[in-house]
């Protein structure tokens, strides 16, 4: 795991190595100071040697300045290394996600991906900086101070060594205890946030059923639980500070007592005693710092795991070695196709599909939710690979095409479609970035989108908000169709893409397709019979199998599912769709 992460340090390796070196230099200079001070006292003040005081004083100031420069350097390169590392992580993850196939994408939730790219990276950035700076600084400071202390007086310094070991053990116990409690506490905390979220988004229901009081008292109960759990968890940490103080004070008193005796018996000098006391803080504070860094690093390990997961995820679709760059025509053939989303042991969602669609045909696809209509069409542009069997487009297996060529020739209007922030024109040009304004307008005319675009004050320059939230569902769908048309594909697939368009416009769009792009093979998935009944042929899907395939008339006669749906929808059980998208 660590290896995968560290690979992303890349050009910031130098900074990552320099930073701890600077930190060690800073620490070294810092620890020099009490040591030199001992010399000032013992060899200067006590012997009355002013010159010695000046000389050592100058060295001390020089040490402080070198320390300052080293500290600044450490800060500078630490920032560079950690920010650069974060930048590389974000970039590599983002780039890798762009390589994901549909089945890779399905594995992660959108929210999950976003958290990984944002919060998790920030956590790692902070942890990395912490490791580079504090993680070297604290132990270095402790070791330096310890060495200095030992060189002054080894016997007295044993007190520090003992204190460090005892305090270290106590801190580890406290911290591990506390993290255990915190680990239990956080899911509860998430639950509480989930319930707030629920109330925010369902506020209309709460108010409509006059449940405000009940919701408030329910929330108060949850918030009581949170209170109790967190008090319990934090009570563990409360010991940190006093125990630390206890140890420091204990050391000071012990050293004072023993030190006094040693001075009297002339095995220690006063200045040395003072230095020893000064190192006490250095040693124990670094230990404290170290324990805190440990907790932070252990907390960020979850983030690291999540990031590595993305970095290591490999797309399960690969371009062939010698790809075909030309799609001959818009014919489609399915040969004994089986397909399952999950390779291991899952029931296939498509079973033994055999189909032969001629170039330029209009094919309707109808069936219940879960009958795998979408799965069927997603295989054509190789958004997923078949589990068994073969799909041929223009007479060539889809796996032999260059993926980009295939997807440009097989244009899919997805069921869950998205517009991006930018102008309408910019969105349209996703289909073809070199499309002229006239070509864009033509595509919009075909998709019946021009009528409402022209009514916008800024026309084609109208700004679309993120997710297309400032246009209605029907308008969005029509823009998405126009965008797909701009590819001038050989095969056009509409996956329930006119559900929010009113029936009259829906019919108009289909009419336009028939007249303007007769050579394009058109596959139309729909819930409404009216959307497909004029197609050349209609596929009726049922539980992953083709239940019927033929013209409207044929199916009415021979296919009971089709007939049932038709009856229900025309007898008045159908939808009265008024979402004209105005």
């Amino acid at each position, binding site marked *: 795991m660590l290896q995968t992460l560290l690979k992303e340090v890349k050009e910031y390796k130098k900074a990552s190595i320099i930073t701890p070196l600077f930190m060690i230099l800073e620490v070294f200079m810092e620890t020099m100071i009490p040591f030199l001070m001992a010399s000032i006292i013992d060899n200067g003040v006590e012997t009355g040697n002013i010159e010695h005081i000046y000389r050592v004083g100058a060295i001390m100031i020089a040490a402080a300045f070198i320390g*300052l420069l080293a500290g600044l350097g450490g800060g500078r390169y630490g920032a560079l290394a950690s920010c650069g590392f974060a930048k590389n992580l974000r970039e590599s993850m983002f780039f890798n996600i762009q390589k994901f196939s549909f089945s890779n994408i399905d594995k992660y939730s959108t929210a999950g991906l976003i958290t990984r790219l944002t919060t998790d990276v920030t956590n790692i950035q902070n942890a990395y900086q912490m490791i580079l700076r504090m993680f070297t600084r604290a132990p270095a400071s402790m070791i330096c101070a310890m060495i200095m202390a030992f060189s002054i007086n080894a016997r007295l310094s044993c007190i520090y060594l003992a204190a460090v070991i005892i305090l270290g053990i106590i801190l580890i116990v406290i911290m591990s205890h506390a993290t255990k409690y915190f680990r239990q506490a956080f899911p509860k905390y998430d639950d509480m946030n989930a319930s707030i979220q629920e109330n925010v988004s369902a506020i209309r229901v709460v108010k409509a059923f006059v449940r405000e009081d009940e919701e*408030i008292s329910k929330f108060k109960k949850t918030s009581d639980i949170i209170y109790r759990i967190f008090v319990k968890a934090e009570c563990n940490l409360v010991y940190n500070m006093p125990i630390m*103080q206890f140890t420091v004070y204990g050391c000071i008193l012990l050293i004072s007592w023993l030190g006094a005796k040693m001075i009297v018996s002339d095995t220690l000098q006063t200045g040395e005693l003072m230095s020893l006391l000064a190192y006490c803080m250095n040693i124990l504070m670094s230990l404290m710092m170290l324990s805190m860094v440990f907790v932070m690093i252990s907390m960020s390990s979850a983030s690291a795991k999540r990031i590595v997961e993305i970095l290591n995820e490999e797309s399960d679709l690969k371009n062939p070695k010698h790809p075909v760059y030309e799609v001959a025509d818009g014919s489609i053939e399915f040969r004994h196709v089986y397909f399952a989303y999950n390779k291991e042991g899952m029931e296939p969602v498509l079973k033994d599909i055999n189909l032969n669609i001629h170039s330029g045909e209009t094919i309707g696809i109808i069936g219940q939710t879960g009958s795998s209509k979408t799965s069927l069409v997603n295989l054509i542009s190789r958004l997923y690979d078949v589990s068994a069997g073969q799909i041929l487009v223009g007479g060539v297996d889809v796996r032999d095409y260059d993926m980009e060529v295939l997807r440009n020739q097989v244009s899919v209007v997805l069921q869950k479609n998205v517009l991006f922030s930018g102008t309408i024109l910019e969105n349209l040009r996703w289909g073809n970035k070199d499309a002229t304004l006239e070509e864009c307008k033509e595509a919009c005319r075909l998709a019946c989108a021009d009528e409402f675009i022209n009514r916008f004050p800024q026309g084609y320059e109208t700004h679309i908000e993120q997710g297309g939230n400032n246009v209605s569902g029907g308008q969005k769908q029509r823009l998405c169709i126009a965008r797909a048309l701009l590819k001038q594909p050989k095969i056009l697939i509409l996956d329930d893409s006119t559900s929010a368009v009113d029936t009259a416009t829906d019919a108009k769009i289909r009419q336009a397709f028939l007249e303007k792009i007769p050579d394009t093979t058109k596959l139309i998935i729909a819930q409404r019979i009216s959307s497909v009944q004029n197609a050349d042929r209609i596929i009726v899907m049922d539980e992953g199998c083709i239940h019927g395939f033929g013209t409207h008339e044929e199916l009415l006669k021979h296919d009971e599912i089709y007939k049932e749906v038709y009856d229900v929808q025309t007898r008045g059980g159908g939808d009265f769709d008024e979402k004209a998208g105005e």
Partner: protein
Amino acid sequence: MKRQVNKMARFKGNSKVQIKHHMKQFCRLMGYIFQSYGIHCALVVILILISVLANVQGTMFTKNLIDNYITPLLLSKYPDFTPLAHAIGRVAGFYGAGVLASYLYNRIMVEVTQGTLRKMRNDLFSRMERLPIRYFDTHAHGDIMSIYTNDIDTLRQMISQSIPQFINSAITIVSVLISMLILNIPLTFVTLIMVGIMVAASKTSAGRSGKYFLEQQMNLGAVNGYIEEMMEGQKVIKVFCHEEETNQKFKELNDKLFISANRANTFANFLGPINAQLGNVSYVVCAITGGILALHHVGGFTLGGLASFLTFNKSFSMPINQISMQLNAVVMAMAGAERIFRLMDEEEEADEGYVTLVNVTKVNGKLQECRQHTGQWAWKHVHQADQSVDYIELKGDVVFDSVDFGYNDDKIVLHDIQLFAKSGQKIAFVGSTGAGKTTITNLINRFYDIQDGKIRYDGININKIKKADLRRSLGIVLQDTNLFTGTVKENIRYGNPDASEEEIIAAAKLANADGFIRRLPNGYDTMLHGGGANLSQGQRQLLSIARAAAADPPVLILDEATSSIDTRTERIVQDGMDKLMHGRTTFVIAHRLSTVRNSDCIMVLEQGKIIERGTHEQLMEEQGRYYQLYTGNVIG
């Protein structure tokens, strides 16, 4: 993103106004804490004082140790260590008290912090539940959520760490300063000058870091926004082979973020070494000056005094360091506190209604109020003029009389709506998205108040009816099913907290939900999570119908779901809805032919006006907009 921009704008404003503003928030926050934890806080201050003084006296002891014990001991021939042992014992006692105090105040602070947060959460939530719908329309849900998560989180850090540290630092600074002055005045001045330099240096560094920090936040917002949008549209990117372009744009934004983050962090990192090393310089200068002073015994300055002073020198710069480190956290917390208090200050949904809904029995054809549940309801109208009481039977008549409505006064979205629904009638609204169908239904339950005209329920102006009672008399089934975390049973009971087990099952049966519920692993006790994510769309709808059925209201508002479910499930849902509508006044935002056909009256809305009304047959004959919509289905 928007918030970031605001922040930036605010920061650019007068910084003095800014500080004053933060001070105001700070004072309010303090007041808020003191309200429930005043005694705790006083205790904390006292305990911190004890802890600091224990520390200071310990440092003072170093001087005594050298001057009063070691030096005389060195001079005496037969050193007697008993006085030293006593002294150390005394100091140990003080230290002990300090440690105890330190434990206690940390322990109390846990209580204060978590208690304050609990109170704050409860206050926020209670207030939020009572806010008008308008608030939720005008505030992004993510922003509301971030008050509970991010803002409270930064406050937690501030209350639990920054505040005690401030108190601690303040007391330390004062007591150390006094001690230093006692020990040696000239050296104190040297220290103060060095501290002045330190503060100035760190201020410059912090200022620059702050500037870049804001820039970083802006860029971070841009990157996050871009990530969010692209992850949302990942499949579209694939379908259009747009990976390269997407990567390119990301790289641009990411590089920008890196540059600003690098700068911000660099200057923030400078803070530590500047303070630490300048502190060392101060220490060295004092050591040299003090050494000379001690050498010449100027003003009776001793070696022990120097030892103590040097420790004080260190403990003087430390709290200043800490304060400057905490300052950023405090500024951020204050921005959070402002948002928290702003939500708490929001105006609650007003309710000036006085007509209430009561249980009644009919005695000799007259309505009589009674306590117990009778299944018969009436409006209790206490006339304000003479306090006489009228009981009006709850029937479910709804009348709109020339109603105008706009979300704000200058943009009216509904014009002159007239409609009359007799008890038990079914009224269907059809029309394009944005024509105002949902808006009309939101007026009946007073999610919004109308600008002009009157809405009457059983002949009473709905403004006179207590909102809770008005809403209790209205059932609602929305397109978004909005189920809650809890069991299936709890979700159905949501419509009527007093519903018995039998009533719940009856409601489920009426809604055609009983069948699938029984097939769930734990039947009616199956837990639902994430708005019922473990159920299918159709099942969720059935539950929301059952919920409305449990409430058993005389008037129903239905928003039919659009065609995202398949025909068979749809029929089950439809059947459940039909059963629910039976015998109730129903306002339905219709999407299905059958619903429209069975309606007593169809309202065709366009741009906030009713342009056609009548039964299906009448409207077909008219050959107007309705005819167009209807036949659109047949054009094929």
